[in-house]
């Protein structure tokens, strides 16, 4: 633009973007590239083509153990996202539609899983589910069971915990999308003879799909990348990709293979992000 216009010209845009691009490049792009390079066995300080090898990837593909871990991770993501969607939808719908003054208080409550930190939530569920924890003391105290149940370690505990952790990410896009549905549509369906459930199934649900999908993908991403809660609530033998990466570093010190696992996880994230962008198409649902 010339001096007369007030739009920011191409040079202005570049200057405005320079600092952010510099930090993101140094703090994020370069580390990512290092991981990629190392996953091919190349030592980035003294790189040479002779080091290039696919052996670490071959190990990943050749070992059923790792195929199973990747499968578990994806399944874990799907199952948590599905459960969270089912639990969160009525809440999101309620927040969007209710005119009660309590909803602003409720909005604070829905934010707590994001705000209080993973250690707090993990600890909370550990206290609830452990041998000497809340549930077991309630059950043994009332005499329903005589021996404490094994609730803490394994799929059940991790799924419960992750549903809690990711709840906010699901409820927000659902609430946003329901807000955009004109309540008159539901009234119209009711006057045309549809009951509440029919109205939900024929009108509300189809119009909410975009929000549900957006929430589903974010939750899926969060679960696939989750580390602290699965490690502590899953216990021995519960292994997903991030835990495997951690073990490669802390136990085996196998950096190239940790890089291979990392690149795999990044690929999954990139694919989900592409899907996300297609669904969002410029709309800000989160």
């Amino acid at each position, binding site marked *: 633009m*010339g*001096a007369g*216009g007030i739009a920011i010209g191409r040079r202005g845009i570049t200057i405005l973007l320079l600092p952010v691009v510099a930090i993101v490049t140094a703090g994020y792009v370069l580390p990512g590239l290092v991981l990629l390079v190392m996953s091919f066995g190349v030592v980035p300080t003294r790189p040479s083509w002779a080091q290039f090898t696919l052996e670490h990837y071959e190990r990943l593909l050749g070992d059923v153990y790792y195929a199973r871990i990747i499968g578990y991770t994806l399944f874990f993501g799907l199952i948590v996202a599905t459960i969270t969607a089912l639990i969160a939808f009525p809440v999101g719908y309620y927040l969007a539609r209710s005119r009660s003054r309590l909803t602003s208080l409720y909005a604070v409550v829905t934010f707590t899983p994001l705000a209080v930190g993973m250690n707090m939530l993990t600890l909370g569920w550990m206290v609830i589910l452990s041998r000497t924890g809340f549930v077991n003391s309630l059950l043994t105290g009332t005499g329903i069971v005589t021996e404490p149940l094994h609730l803490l370690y394994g799929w059940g505990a991790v799924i419960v915990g992750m549903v809690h952790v990711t709840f906010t990410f699901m409820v927000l896009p659902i609430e946003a999308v329901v807000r955009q549905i004109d309540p008159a549509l539901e009234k119209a369906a009711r006057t045309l003879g549809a009951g509440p459930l029919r109205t939900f199934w024929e009108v509300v649900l189809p119009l909410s799909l975009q929000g549900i999908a957006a929430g589903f993908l974010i939750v899926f991403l969060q679960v696939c990348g989750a580390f602290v809660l699965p490690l502590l609530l899953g216990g021995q033998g519960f292994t997903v990709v991030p835990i495997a990466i951690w073990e490669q570093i802390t136990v085996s010190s196998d950096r190239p293979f940790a890089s291979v696992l990392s690149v795999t996880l990044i690929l999954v994230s990139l694919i989900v992000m592409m899907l996300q962008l297609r669904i969002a198409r410029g709309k800000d649902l989160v």
Partner: protein
Amino acid sequence: MPDLPYDLELIAVSKSYDENAVVNDVSFAMKKGEFLSLLGPSGCGKTTTLSMIAGFETPTRGEIKIRNERIDDRPPERRNIGMVFQNYALFPHMKVAENIGFGLRMRGTPRAEIAQRVIESARLVKVEHLLDRLPRQLSGGQQQRVALARALIVQPALLLLDEPFGALDRLLREEMQIEVRSLLKRLGITTVFVTHDQDEALSMSDRVAVMFAGNIGQIDMPQALYDSPRTELVAGFIGKATFIPGRLEGDPLRFVSPDGTFDVPATHAPPSSGDATYFLRPEAIRIATNASHYQNEVSGSVIASTFFGDRKMIMVGTPSDQRFLVAVDRSTALEIGAPVRIGWMTAHAALFQGGLRQ
């Protein structure tokens, strides 16, 4: 008076985006104190023209001068203009006094002087009792007054109004139009007013520039625009009218249409035979009675009747399906379907050929 400088001059100003001309060779000049409207349908280029005067857009070609100084390469803050925006654009986080004083603050005027002049400006538009309020605590009319005070406080060479009355309800709008017009006349401030509302443009302006597709179709005083539109487009845009398609034939030339042959009204240039459009304002057409005699008469029947309170308009359809709009006395009682004869004096008609008035 060739020596008197113009407050605003546009010389062959054009603006195009990727080869699409939005404003095309627009030229006009305004004397001090003049009130000029840019009137046209949306997309006609009136807003872009205003944006170029304000400095939000850079002309692709042409020159813009304020008080004989070329300003089209200056940023908006160095053009010394005031502007009232559609929806007012009051700064939501500033009180009324801060909003009004903003321009002086940007110019580094001393605090005490700002306070003084804010009060004066507020008095001018009668908002001196609202200085401590935030914009959202004001009514639409009050917001508009504040916006006007904010624009006027810097004593601009030129005031730009971008559809400022659009957000007001009808009664308040008419009241504000009268008040703003008389205030601006009293201050003698040169004003460019953009609107798509022709009533507003005709009632407030000294001159109106009617724009179509990036061009000024006609720039004239309001009455001249209504009485003698120079193009068929302007004639159709300003006020209501009847257009009869037909041909000029014979010697002497007569206008031939399916509804009859009419006398050719006086023209500036001698017309030539061929396709032409005959043009009549509703006031030019009368209901013919046995006692009256008009140079041109047509028979038809009433197909619609609209009552406006102070006047009444009927639509007369002829057997060839031509429709005539006729302004009638408000007490005229004519049933839909009633046969009627209408007529007009040739002097009250006009003729267009190739879209231009002959």
